[in-house]
């Protein structure tokens, strides 16, 4: 404690030995400062520019990469949107084609059904006509047979009943009508 107090109780005259007391050599300090400045100048002239340039280039490259990435991302988004749009359009067209095909199939089925119904009706009509004709033919044949039987029966009966006397009366009557 006394040593410290003794030391700090120095006069102004002892101030010049302050650097010395601190261990600082002002000539060395000046030289070091000059060296530092020379170094700084050299660095500034030969090291910092390329370094800064390299850093700038790297910075630009990173920026360019980032821009490219963003651009790629944007283009990917656009492609995705376009793809989605094309897909929607394709789905829409497919739906339309399916709907059209379904409609045409329904129409075809309807037409085919109508044709089949018409054909069936025609066949029924033809069959009815055929049956009617056959019935009429059978009726006609039956009538003819009935007439034949009646004529035969009548002839048979008349042959037995008409004697010469009745025949003479018939002939006289017919001759009167013929006159």
């Amino acid at each position: 404690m006394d040593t410290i107090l003794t030391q700090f109780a120095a006069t102004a005259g002892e101030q010049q030995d302050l650097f010395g007391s601190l261990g600082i050599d002002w000539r060395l300090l000046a030289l070091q400062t000059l060296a530092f400045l020379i170094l700084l100048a050299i660095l500034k002239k030969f090291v910092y520019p390329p370094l800064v340039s390299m850093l700038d280039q790297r910075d630009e490259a990173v920026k360019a990469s980032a821009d490219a990435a963003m651009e790629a991302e944007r283009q990917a988004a656009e492609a995705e949107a376009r793809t989605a749009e094309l897909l929607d359009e394709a789905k829409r067209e497919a739906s339309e084609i399916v709907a059209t095909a379904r409609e045409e199939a329904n129409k075809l089925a309807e037409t085919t059904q109508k044709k089949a119904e018409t054909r069936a009706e025609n066949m029924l009509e033809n069959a009815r006509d055929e049956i009617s004709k056959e019935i009429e033919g059978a009726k006609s044949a039956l009538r003819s047979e009935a007439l034949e039987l009646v004529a035969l029966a009548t002839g048979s009966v008349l042959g037995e009943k008409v004697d010469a006397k009745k025949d003479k009366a018939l002939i006289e009557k017919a001759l009167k009508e013929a006159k």
Partner: protein
Amino acid sequence: MASRLSRRKLAIHAANRLLEGDESVIDELAALLIAERREREADTLVRDIEDQLGFSGELVVTVETAHKIDETIRQQVFQLFPDKTVHIREVIKPELIGGFRVTTPERVLDATLASKLSALRAMKV
């Protein structure tokens, strides 16, 4: 070889001779038909002769009945052809049942019961 005489010429010749009263022409015609093998033409020739006689006023009438007719009926047949000299050929056909059929060269008058029955058969109801 002499050519065949047509049926029409034969009929005219026969009719003329019959009108003159010469009945031998019938035998001659029969012989001719046999000689020329024209027997199938006999019926047709008879009809042709009757046609020719009809032109001359001599009418041959065929009367077909189911029973034999008497004089009353014959007179009534004569009255059907007042302008002609009628010669009746009587044919009895029981299948006629009743009534009569009078056949002349120009027409047929059918009033038989058999024809009426045939008409009944032919009816289309």
